């Protein structure tokens, strides 16, 4: 069984690396934002530079998770290769596990440019222990966005999924304070911000990387979102299975 998970993971990785547009989108945009905004404005403030680097790493990871997964899953459903895979002697698990693992791998690759820019051009600092903790927080915080990506991918046609995932992505990134620190956001945004899942994920990562004490409300909301989105993703998966393979 684990061999099959490996085979599917490798297969999906190759697919993403050979058509690297998603990988580029989720790594280049945050890296450029680092150079354009963080380096000139927060490059000399240690804590500000560190949390900004962490925020933009999460921005890239979230793009890989939400936009990447929703596109991949919705496109898969439209390809005749997908029903062929169902005739092979494997249940849906290896493909699903492969999808998640390859998304995680692409996500971890796509955060590297931001990390490099942060290390070379800002005063952001981090201990190896905090970096590991930060990556752990990143993976935890990205779970609800993977679930959201699965939900959108299972419910929508690929063209709609592409548009909807982008529409969800940018407002959530802004409301959660990933592009600008929450303290300088407009007041009405500050009211909403603690309740969006991006904020909870960001708080978790800021805590892990820079020791900023997190807001309890945001963390609870992150957990609530994760549970809700898990239920939505499971519902969407079953609905899709019922339509195509029952």
């Amino acid at each position, binding site marked *: 069984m684990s*061999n099959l998970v490996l085979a599917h993971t490798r297969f999906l990785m190759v697919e993403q690396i050979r058509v690297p547009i998603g990988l580029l989108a989720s790594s280049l945009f945050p890296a450029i934002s680092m150079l354009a905004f963080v380096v000139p404005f927060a490059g000399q403030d240690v804590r500000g530079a560190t949390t900004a680097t962490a925020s933009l790493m999460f921005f890239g990871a979230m793009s890989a998770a939400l936009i990447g997964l929703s596109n991949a899953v919705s496109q898969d459903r439209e390809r005749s290769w997908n029903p062929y895979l169902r*005739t092979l002697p494997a249940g849906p698990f290896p493909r699903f596990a492969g999808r998640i693992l390859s998304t995680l791998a692409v996500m971890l690759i796509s955060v590297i440019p931001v990390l490099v820019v942060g290390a070379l051009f800002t005063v952001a600092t981090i201990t190896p222990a905090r970096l590991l903790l930060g990556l752990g927080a990143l993976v935890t915080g990205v779970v609800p966005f993977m679930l959201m990506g699965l939900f959108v991918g299972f419910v929508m046609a690929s063209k709609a999924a592409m548009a909807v995932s982008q529409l969800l992505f940018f407002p959530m990134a802004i409301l959660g304070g990933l592009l600008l620190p929450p303290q300088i956001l407009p007041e009405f945004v500050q009211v909403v911000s603690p309740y969006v899942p991006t904020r909870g994920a960001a708080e978790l990562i800021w805590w892990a990387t820079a020791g900023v004490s997190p807001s309890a409300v945001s963390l609870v909301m992150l957990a609530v979102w994760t549970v809700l989105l898990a239920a939505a993703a499971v519902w969407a998966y079953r609905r899709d299975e019922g339509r195509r393979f029952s």
Partner: protein
Amino acid sequence: MTVLARAIEATRQYGDVLALDRVSLDIRAGELVGLLGPNGAGKSTLINLFAGLRRPTSGVVELFGGSPLDPAIRRGIGVTPQETGLPESFRVGEIVDFVSAHFPEPVGRAELLARFGLSDLVKRQIGGLSGGQRRRLAAALAFAGRPRLVFLDEPTTGLDVEARRALWDGIKAFHEDGGTVLLTSHYLEEIEALAQRVVVVGNGRVLVDDTVPAVRGMVGARRVSLVAEDLPELPGVLGSERADGRIDLVTTDPDRLVVELVRSRVPFSGLEIRPATLEEAFLAITSKESANV
């Protein structure tokens, strides 16, 4: 003989559409069965049930005595993907390896590709293959896991004559080694060339299940071929065709046709009468069926 695949009163509905209507069918070890029928007759639905992609709305579908939904049971079957769906960015060898990873004793990349004349393409990306090469690769994938039973859905659509013959040889070789094949085709010539048993489906039901010669004989159609300048109206002609100076007429009553032809006093020569091909028989069966509805 062992029954490898069996449908008992299998019915499949898609919403209001009845795709299969109480179909019962046994596929025994070592058989090469041709599944024949117009588009929408239920051929693909039947294969989807056997391959575990769909469940019957009612009735039973079995594979090797178990359920096609059980992955372990599916180790014994091979299915062709649609060649248009093969992932473009992969190399031929990578696809073969990926599919092979699902089976306990795969044929192996080199041997499989050699068998289907694809050895030179092992490093080529699928996006760069011709339609015919993709078709052959798709067919080859069905054999990757040393299956006992292979489902080939229109394996040679879009192949040139030479490639088609090569693929037929591959299917025949598999069959001669004891493999079992269920084949659908639009090329009736293909079913005639390969199959021993023909199952004709129409409107979701099995209309005929018999040997190739029996199906041909059942319809009783004959092909009357002759050389003539011009022919008058003749009775009982199902279809006619003019090629290389000869006129071919398909009829259910060749005797009467010849009598009328002689009576008309039109000069002719080279008269031949032979049983109609399966294609002609098939057209006759399905048109009879729709006339009854």
